[in-house]
Protein backbone atom coordinates (compact mmCIF):
# COMPACT_ATOMS: atom_id res chain seq x y z
CA UNK A 1 0.00 0.00 0.00
CA UNK A 2 1.38 3.33 -0.96
CA UNK A 3 1.40 6.43 1.19
CA UNK A 4 -1.32 8.02 -0.95
CA UNK A 5 -3.70 5.08 -0.49
CA UNK A 6 -3.11 4.99 3.26
CA UNK A 7 -3.86 8.71 3.51
CA UNK A 8 -7.03 8.40 1.43
CA UNK A 9 -8.29 5.52 3.60
CA UNK A 10 -7.47 7.32 6.83
CA UNK A 11 -9.06 10.57 5.59
CA UNK A 12 -12.23 8.68 4.66
CA UNK A 13 -12.44 7.15 8.16
CA UNK A 14 -11.85 10.59 9.74
CA UNK A 15 -14.50 12.12 7.46
CA UNK A 16 -17.08 9.52 8.55
CA UNK A 17 -16.20 10.01 12.23
CA UNK A 18 -16.26 13.82 12.03
CA UNK A 19 -19.19 14.52 9.76
CA UNK A 20 -21.42 11.43 9.59
CA UNK A 21 -21.32 9.99 13.12
CA UNK A 22 -23.04 13.03 14.75
CA UNK A 23 -25.99 12.48 12.42
CA UNK A 24 -26.35 8.75 13.09
CA UNK A 25 -29.84 7.48 13.90
CA UNK A 26 -30.50 7.65 17.65
CA UNK A 27 -33.08 4.87 17.50
CA UNK A 28 -32.15 1.73 19.48
CA UNK A 29 -30.28 -0.94 17.51
CA UNK A 30 -31.70 -4.40 16.81
CA UNK A 31 -30.48 -5.95 20.10
CA UNK A 32 -31.64 -3.00 22.27
CA UNK A 33 -35.02 -2.96 20.57
CA UNK A 34 -35.58 -6.67 21.20
CA UNK A 35 -34.21 -6.43 24.76
CA UNK A 36 -36.78 -3.69 25.44
CA UNK A 37 -39.70 -5.52 23.84
CA UNK A 38 -38.87 -8.84 25.58
CA UNK A 39 -38.39 -7.05 28.91
CA UNK A 40 -34.72 -7.65 29.70
CA UNK A 41 -33.18 -4.30 28.74
CA UNK A 42 -32.93 -3.09 32.37
CA UNK A 43 -30.71 -6.09 33.24
CA UNK A 44 -27.86 -4.33 31.46
CA UNK A 45 -28.33 -0.93 33.09
CA UNK A 46 -25.62 0.18 35.51
CA UNK A 47 -23.84 -3.17 35.32
CA UNK A 48 -20.61 -2.00 33.67
CA UNK A 49 -17.67 -3.84 35.19
CA UNK A 50 -15.13 -1.12 34.44
CA UNK A 51 -15.37 2.66 34.15
CA UNK A 52 -14.85 3.86 30.56
CA UNK A 53 -13.20 7.21 29.87
CA UNK A 54 -15.70 8.23 27.17
CA UNK A 55 -18.95 6.34 27.77
CA UNK A 56 -21.46 6.42 24.91
CA UNK A 57 -19.01 8.20 22.57
CA UNK A 58 -19.33 11.51 24.42
CA UNK A 59 -16.11 13.51 24.63
CA UNK A 60 -16.26 15.40 27.97
CA UNK A 61 -16.37 19.19 28.25
CA UNK A 62 -18.47 19.97 25.20
CA UNK A 63 -22.00 21.33 25.35
CA UNK A 64 -22.81 20.24 21.84
CA UNK A 65 -23.56 16.52 21.75
CA UNK A 66 -22.76 16.41 18.04
CA UNK A 67 -19.29 17.88 18.60
CA UNK A 68 -18.69 15.50 21.53
CA UNK A 69 -19.56 12.54 19.28
CA UNK A 70 -17.38 13.82 16.42
CA UNK A 71 -14.36 14.19 18.68
CA UNK A 72 -14.87 10.72 20.19
CA UNK A 73 -15.02 9.35 16.67
CA UNK A 74 -11.77 11.07 15.65
CA UNK A 75 -10.02 9.82 18.79
CA UNK A 76 -11.26 6.27 18.17
CA UNK A 77 -10.18 6.36 14.52
CA UNK A 78 -6.65 7.44 15.49
CA UNK A 79 -6.40 4.83 18.28
CA UNK A 80 -7.58 2.06 15.93
CA UNK A 81 -5.29 3.10 13.10
CA UNK A 82 -2.35 2.88 15.53
CA UNK A 83 -3.54 -0.38 17.07
CA UNK A 84 -4.20 -2.01 13.67
CA UNK A 85 -0.77 -1.03 12.28
CA UNK A 86 0.92 -1.95 15.57
CA UNK A 87 -0.50 -5.46 15.73
CA UNK A 88 0.26 -6.00 12.03
CA UNK A 89 3.89 -4.91 12.62
CA UNK A 90 4.24 -7.32 15.56
CA UNK A 91 2.79 -10.17 13.49
CA UNK A 92 5.12 -9.34 10.62
CA UNK A 93 8.10 -9.21 12.97
CA UNK A 94 7.21 -12.61 14.38
CA UNK A 95 7.06 -13.97 10.86
CA UNK A 96 10.51 -12.65 9.92
CA UNK A 97 12.00 -13.87 13.23
CA UNK A 98 10.63 -17.28 12.42
CA UNK A 99 12.10 -17.16 8.92
CA UNK A 100 15.51 -16.14 10.26
CA UNK A 101 15.50 -19.10 12.61
CA UNK A 102 14.76 -21.50 9.77
CA UNK A 103 17.50 -20.24 7.45
Amino acid at each position, binding site marked *: MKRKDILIGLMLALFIALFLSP*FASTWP*DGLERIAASKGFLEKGEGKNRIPSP*LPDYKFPGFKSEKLATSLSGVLGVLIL*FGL*GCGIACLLRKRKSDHETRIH
Partner: protein
Amino acid sequence: MHIPDGFLTSATWVPAWLLSMGGIGYSLKKASQTLRERMIPLMGVMSAFIFAAQMVNFPVMSGTSGHLLGGVLAAVLLGPYAGAIVLTCVLIVQCLIFQDGGLTALGANIFNMSIVGTMGGYGVYKIISGNSGNRKAVLAGTALASWFSVVAASSCCAIQLALSDLSPLTVVLPAMAGVHAVIGVGEAMITTVVIGFVLKVRPDLLYGLPLKPTNESSFLLQDENLKEDAL
Protein backbone atom coordinates in the same frame (compact mmCIF):
# COMPACT_ATOMS: atom_id res chain seq x y z
CA MET B 1 -25.51 -6.15 18.53
CA HIS B 2 -22.91 -5.32 21.19
CA ILE B 3 -24.05 -7.21 24.31
CA PRO B 4 -23.63 -5.10 27.50
CA ASP B 5 -22.58 -6.39 30.94
CA GLY B 6 -25.45 -7.83 32.94
CA PHE B 7 -27.22 -9.67 30.10
CA LEU B 8 -25.28 -12.92 30.05
CA THR B 9 -24.88 -15.37 32.94
CA SER B 10 -21.35 -16.55 33.77
CA ALA B 11 -22.29 -20.01 32.46
CA THR B 12 -22.60 -18.31 29.05
CA TRP B 13 -19.95 -15.60 29.00
CA VAL B 14 -17.09 -17.69 30.43
CA PRO B 15 -17.30 -20.39 27.70
CA ALA B 16 -17.77 -17.62 25.11
CA TRP B 17 -14.54 -15.98 26.32
CA LEU B 18 -12.67 -19.30 26.08
CA LEU B 19 -14.01 -20.04 22.59
CA SER B 20 -13.15 -16.61 21.24
CA MET B 21 -9.67 -16.64 22.84
CA GLY B 22 -9.02 -19.93 21.07
CA GLY B 23 -10.27 -18.51 17.78
CA ILE B 24 -8.26 -15.31 18.07
CA GLY B 25 -5.12 -17.20 19.14
CA TYR B 26 -5.45 -19.35 16.04
CA SER B 27 -6.06 -16.25 13.89
CA LEU B 28 -2.93 -14.54 15.25
CA LYS B 29 -0.88 -17.64 14.43
CA LYS B 30 -2.30 -17.97 10.90
CA ALA B 31 -2.12 -14.23 10.20
CA SER B 32 1.55 -14.11 11.20
CA GLN B 33 2.22 -16.81 8.60
CA THR B 34 0.35 -15.12 5.76
CA LEU B 35 0.81 -11.40 6.45
CA ARG B 36 2.50 -9.44 3.72
CA GLU B 37 4.36 -6.16 4.18
CA ARG B 38 1.72 -4.18 2.27
CA MET B 39 -1.04 -5.48 4.55
CA ILE B 40 0.38 -3.64 7.61
CA PRO B 41 -1.06 -0.18 6.86
CA LEU B 42 -4.19 -1.81 5.40
CA MET B 43 -4.89 -3.39 8.81
CA GLY B 44 -4.61 0.07 10.39
CA VAL B 45 -6.85 1.69 7.79
CA MET B 46 -9.47 -1.08 8.00
CA SER B 47 -9.57 -0.93 11.82
CA ALA B 48 -10.08 2.84 11.68
CA PHE B 49 -12.65 2.67 8.87
CA ILE B 50 -14.76 -0.08 10.47
CA PHE B 51 -14.73 1.73 13.83
CA ALA B 52 -15.94 4.95 12.17
CA ALA B 53 -18.56 3.16 10.05
CA GLN B 54 -19.90 1.31 13.11
CA MET B 55 -20.70 4.69 14.70
CA VAL B 56 -23.12 5.58 11.92
CA ASN B 57 -26.45 3.95 12.76
CA PHE B 58 -28.96 3.97 9.93
CA PRO B 59 -32.72 3.54 10.44
CA VAL B 60 -33.98 0.14 9.28
CA MET B 61 -37.60 0.21 10.36
CA SER B 62 -39.73 2.43 12.51
CA GLY B 63 -37.92 2.92 15.81
CA THR B 64 -35.01 0.56 15.09
CA SER B 65 -31.55 1.26 13.69
CA GLY B 66 -28.57 -0.79 12.63
CA HIS B 67 -24.97 -0.19 11.67
CA LEU B 68 -22.26 -1.80 9.61
CA LEU B 69 -20.58 -4.82 11.17
CA GLY B 70 -17.71 -4.79 8.69
CA GLY B 71 -16.58 -8.38 9.14
CA VAL B 72 -16.89 -9.40 5.49
CA LEU B 73 -15.45 -6.05 4.38
CA ALA B 74 -12.33 -6.73 6.48
CA ALA B 75 -12.08 -10.38 5.41
CA VAL B 76 -12.42 -9.75 1.65
CA LEU B 77 -9.47 -7.32 1.83
CA LEU B 78 -7.34 -8.92 4.56
CA GLY B 79 -8.40 -12.55 4.64
CA PRO B 80 -10.31 -14.29 7.45
CA TYR B 81 -7.50 -14.26 10.04
CA ALA B 82 -6.25 -10.67 9.83
CA GLY B 83 -9.90 -9.65 9.29
CA ALA B 84 -10.97 -11.29 12.56
CA ILE B 85 -8.07 -9.56 14.35
CA VAL B 86 -9.19 -6.17 13.00
CA LEU B 87 -12.78 -6.72 14.19
CA THR B 88 -11.47 -7.81 17.60
CA CYS B 89 -9.38 -4.63 17.91
CA VAL B 90 -12.49 -2.55 17.13
CA LEU B 91 -14.55 -4.43 19.74
CA ILE B 92 -11.84 -4.09 22.43
CA VAL B 93 -11.53 -0.30 21.92
CA GLN B 94 -15.33 0.12 21.85
CA CYS B 95 -15.63 -1.82 25.10
CA LEU B 96 -12.73 -0.30 27.06
CA ILE B 97 -12.97 3.33 25.93
CA PHE B 98 -16.55 3.94 24.80
CA GLN B 99 -18.52 1.51 26.99
CA ASP B 100 -20.05 -0.03 23.87
CA GLY B 101 -20.41 -3.72 24.76
CA GLY B 102 -19.58 -5.10 28.22
CA LEU B 103 -16.26 -6.49 29.48
CA THR B 104 -17.79 -9.80 30.58
CA ALA B 105 -19.71 -9.96 27.28
CA LEU B 106 -16.62 -9.08 25.20
CA GLY B 107 -15.86 -12.75 24.63
CA ALA B 108 -19.38 -13.34 23.31
CA ASN B 109 -19.19 -10.20 21.16
CA ILE B 110 -15.83 -11.31 19.72
CA PHE B 111 -17.26 -14.78 19.09
CA ASN B 112 -20.35 -13.40 17.29
CA MET B 113 -18.74 -10.66 15.23
CA SER B 114 -15.07 -11.68 14.73
CA ILE B 115 -15.35 -15.46 14.57
CA VAL B 116 -18.83 -16.10 13.17
CA GLY B 117 -19.36 -12.79 11.33
CA THR B 118 -15.85 -12.37 9.90
CA MET B 119 -14.39 -15.87 9.51
CA GLY B 120 -17.78 -17.49 8.80
CA GLY B 121 -18.69 -14.67 6.43
CA TYR B 122 -15.41 -15.16 4.59
CA GLY B 123 -16.24 -18.86 4.15
CA VAL B 124 -19.53 -17.97 2.44
CA TYR B 125 -17.75 -15.34 0.29
CA LYS B 126 -15.17 -17.88 -0.84
CA ILE B 127 -17.78 -20.55 -1.66
CA ILE B 128 -19.75 -18.13 -3.85
CA SER B 129 -16.96 -16.12 -5.45
CA GLY B 130 -14.49 -18.95 -6.08
CA ASN B 131 -10.88 -18.24 -7.03
CA SER B 132 -11.32 -16.71 -10.49
CA GLY B 133 -11.21 -13.04 -9.49
CA ASN B 134 -14.19 -12.47 -11.81
CA ARG B 135 -15.72 -9.11 -10.86
CA LYS B 136 -19.34 -10.28 -10.83
CA ALA B 137 -18.51 -13.39 -8.79
CA VAL B 138 -16.53 -11.33 -6.24
CA LEU B 139 -19.35 -8.80 -5.83
CA ALA B 140 -22.10 -11.45 -5.62
CA GLY B 141 -20.07 -13.34 -3.01
CA THR B 142 -19.44 -10.11 -1.08
CA ALA B 143 -23.13 -9.14 -1.04
CA LEU B 144 -24.49 -12.53 0.01
CA ALA B 145 -21.72 -13.16 2.56
CA SER B 146 -22.30 -9.70 4.11
CA TRP B 147 -26.01 -10.39 4.57
CA PHE B 148 -25.28 -13.86 5.94
CA SER B 149 -22.63 -12.58 8.37
CA VAL B 150 -25.06 -10.22 10.10
CA VAL B 151 -27.88 -12.79 10.34
CA ALA B 152 -25.48 -15.52 11.57
CA ALA B 153 -23.83 -13.25 14.16
CA SER B 154 -27.21 -12.07 15.48
CA SER B 155 -28.48 -15.67 15.64
CA CYS B 156 -25.47 -16.62 17.80
CA CYS B 157 -26.22 -13.59 19.95
CA ALA B 158 -29.83 -14.81 20.30
CA ILE B 159 -28.61 -18.28 21.38
CA GLN B 160 -26.42 -16.67 24.07
CA LEU B 161 -29.38 -14.59 25.30
CA ALA B 162 -31.54 -17.73 25.47
CA LEU B 163 -28.77 -19.68 27.29
CA SER B 164 -28.79 -16.87 29.87
CA ASP B 165 -32.56 -17.36 30.38
CA LEU B 166 -33.42 -13.86 29.24
CA SER B 167 -36.00 -15.04 26.72
CA PRO B 168 -36.92 -18.42 25.22
CA LEU B 169 -34.97 -19.33 22.07
CA THR B 170 -38.20 -19.76 20.08
CA VAL B 171 -38.99 -16.08 20.79
CA VAL B 172 -35.60 -14.36 20.70
CA LEU B 173 -34.04 -16.22 17.74
CA PRO B 174 -36.72 -15.28 15.15
CA ALA B 175 -36.84 -11.75 16.57
CA MET B 176 -33.06 -11.21 16.34
CA ALA B 177 -32.65 -12.93 12.98
CA GLY B 178 -35.68 -11.06 11.59
CA VAL B 179 -34.45 -7.57 12.49
CA HIS B 180 -30.92 -8.38 11.36
CA ALA B 181 -32.15 -9.79 8.04
CA VAL B 182 -33.17 -6.17 7.33
CA ILE B 183 -29.96 -4.66 8.79
CA GLY B 184 -28.05 -7.22 6.68
CA VAL B 185 -29.40 -5.61 3.50
CA GLY B 186 -27.72 -2.35 4.55
CA GLU B 187 -24.55 -4.29 5.37
CA ALA B 188 -24.60 -5.92 1.91
CA MET B 189 -25.15 -2.58 0.16
CA ILE B 190 -22.32 -0.73 1.96
CA THR B 191 -19.85 -3.63 1.73
CA THR B 192 -20.54 -4.24 -1.98
CA VAL B 193 -20.13 -0.55 -2.85
CA VAL B 194 -16.80 -0.34 -0.97
CA ILE B 195 -15.45 -3.61 -2.40
CA GLY B 196 -16.67 -2.62 -5.89
CA PHE B 197 -14.72 0.63 -5.58
CA VAL B 198 -11.53 -1.07 -4.36
CA LEU B 199 -11.88 -3.66 -7.12
CA LYS B 200 -11.96 -0.86 -9.65
CA VAL B 201 -9.05 1.23 -8.38
CA ARG B 202 -6.78 -1.23 -6.54
CA PRO B 203 -7.83 -4.83 -7.32
CA ASP B 204 -4.48 -6.02 -5.96
CA LEU B 205 -5.67 -5.11 -2.43
CA LEU B 206 -8.21 -7.97 -2.37
CA TYR B 207 -7.02 -10.98 -0.37
CA GLY B 208 -6.27 -14.24 -2.08
CA LEU B 209 -7.13 -13.28 -5.65
CA PRO B 210 -4.87 -14.28 -8.53
CA LEU B 211 -2.60 -11.39 -9.44
CA LYS B 212 -2.88 -12.14 -13.15
CA PRO B 213 -4.91 -9.52 -14.99
CA THR B 214 -8.54 -10.39 -15.70
CA ASN B 215 -9.15 -7.54 -18.15
CA GLU B 216 -7.32 -4.76 -19.90
CA SER B 217 -7.89 -2.04 -17.30
CA SER B 218 -6.58 -4.09 -14.39
CA PHE B 219 -3.63 -5.10 -16.57
CA LEU B 220 -2.76 -1.46 -17.13
CA LEU B 221 -3.19 -0.71 -13.44
CA GLN B 222 -0.87 -3.50 -12.39
CA ASP B 223 1.62 -2.35 -14.96
CA GLU B 224 1.59 1.09 -13.36
CA ASN B 225 2.01 -0.44 -9.92
CA LEU B 226 4.99 -2.43 -11.11
CA LYS B 227 6.53 0.75 -12.49
CA GLU B 228 5.93 2.56 -9.17
CA ASP B 229 7.40 -0.33 -7.24
CA ALA B 230 10.44 -0.32 -9.45
CA LEU B 231 11.07 3.38 -8.86
